[in-house]
């Protein structure tokens, strides 16, 4: 028998990666179901009710099977190589974010000491993937979607990064685990409530900007169905389309999870006595709540226009983030 000891790390990593992919898929499935249910109830209807009996819980499975066995269509005039490659890039970009999400103190893919920075960095892949998809489809609407998306994601990365810097400054580290550990012991220790109102503003800016980052309403311009048909994935169908879809829900989870981590105390319960409930439940609960808010907003608000989107980013979020950053910096220096 081979001694497993030296390879334990490796095995754990492999298991974790497989687990994360499974989790992402399951979450995406659950989220599509949740999205329909949320939309349904907001719109005074029930959403899927038939498949699987209880509140249509099997609907996402049915959808997944349908998407898997659907004909895979590649337009004749598309740039086939790039067309095929693009969904993977987008998906990988989304998946890579999961590596540093601390589900619990010891349940994290890799506690990188540059955790927050890493997440911001890997989102770049998504931009490239979307540009690639838009171009390769050889469809003008896709192209518009891709251009809008790239412009939007690059612009909104700045307020996102600046807002994330605030808890980083307060914690003095970029490691996800350490940031969470600094927020232990009750919700009043969470970064969102410390240094009021700066960190609260940072949280709000982060949340809105992250909506734009993941192309969700009211910032869903790249895939605005009434303007651009379906934006950059107009020409995609079947499983390739499903990968974009999966990536979108994965991204929703990632940005919400980061918000939960750096602002909302990660795996810690709001009250210390509730810490008997395992951390991952708190973590996923907080994240799921933020995901729910994203859906809530989507089914309530109209969509912005391109120039308004840019206006909001460069003339509102950015100055506020900078001012915020300066003030928090001052606060940290004076206190420390």
């Amino acid at each position, binding site marked *: 028998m081979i001694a497993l000891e030296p390879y334990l790390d*490796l095995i754990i990593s492999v298991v974790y990666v497989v687990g994360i992919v499974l989790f992402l898929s399951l979450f995406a499935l659950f989220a599509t179901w949740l999205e329909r249910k949320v939309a349904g109830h907001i719109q005074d209807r029930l959403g899927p009710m038939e498949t699987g009996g209880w509140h249509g819980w099997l609907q996402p499975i049915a959808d997944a099977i349908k998407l898997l066995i659907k004909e895979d269509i590649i337009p004749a005039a598309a*740039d086939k190589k790039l067309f095929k490659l693009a969904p993977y890039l987008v998906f990988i970009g989304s998946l890579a974010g999961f590596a540093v999400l601390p589900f619990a103190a010891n349940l994290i893919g890799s506690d990188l*000491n540059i955790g927050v*920075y*890493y997440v911001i*960095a890997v989102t*770049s892949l998504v931009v490239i993937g979307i540009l*690639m998809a838009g171009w390769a489809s050889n469809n003008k609407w896709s192209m518009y979607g891709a*251009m809008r998306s*790239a412009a939007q994601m690059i612009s909104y990365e700045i307020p996102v990064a600046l807002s994330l810097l605030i808890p980083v400054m307060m914690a003095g580290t970029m490691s996800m685990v350490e940031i969470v550990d600094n927020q232990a012991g009750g919700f009043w220790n969470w970064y969102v409530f410390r240094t009021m109102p700066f960190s609260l503003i940072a949280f709000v800016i982060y949340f809105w900007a992250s909506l734009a980052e993941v192309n969700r309403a009211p910032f869903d311009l790249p895939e605005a169905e009434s303007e651009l048909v379906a934006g950059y994935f107009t020409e995609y169908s079947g499983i390739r389309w499903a990968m974009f879809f999966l990536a979108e829900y994965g991204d929703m989870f990632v940005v919400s999870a980061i918000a939960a981590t750096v602002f909302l105390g990660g795996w810690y319960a709001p009250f210390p006595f509730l810490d008997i409930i395992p951390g991952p439940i708190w973590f996923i609960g907080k994240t799921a709540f933020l995901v729910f808010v994203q859906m809530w907003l989507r089914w309530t608000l109209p969509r912005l226009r391109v120039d308004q989107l840019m206006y909001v980013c460069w003339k509102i979020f950015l100055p506020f983030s900078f001012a915020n950053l300066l003030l928090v910096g001052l606060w940290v220096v004076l206190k420390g």
Partner: protein
Amino acid sequence: MILHFLTQAVFWFLVILTVGSAIVVVFNKRILHSAFALLFTLCGVAGLYVFLSADFLAASQMLVYVGGILTLIIFGVFLTARMYNMSIPEQTHQRFLALLPVLGLGGIIFYVLNSAEWHLITPMVAPTTENLGKMLLTTYLVPFEVASMLLLAALIGAIRLARPRKEDHDD
């Protein structure tokens, strides 16, 4: 043993990825395919930085080069290319002429590589971010500030150039 092998395999994978996609960048006839191939080159380099325990540098590589510069390049190609006409011919009939500087430069690099004294260090696991930050704000403060000044000037210049001129506005 297996671990070592795996590490080696990943390393060589990254090397092949970097060099291979770099070759695609140079030799592909479609400028857009070259631009997208550059993505893999940059990612490969980022991976190599990880091997050097320079994780901050690796993330920066992704953020700045992939998220910023590569996107810019792709945008540039999009804007110069006609949307209707997807292929952009890139003429390569000066290949042999190009060989001369390539060989010259290659020779110099090879010479430097050979003559340099390489210190093998043990891989660090300590975070590099803090050191980087400290060094940027102490030892290398002046170059850091000069670089930021340069970037600021470039930004202002770009805005100035991009703004419509007064005369254009009037008519």
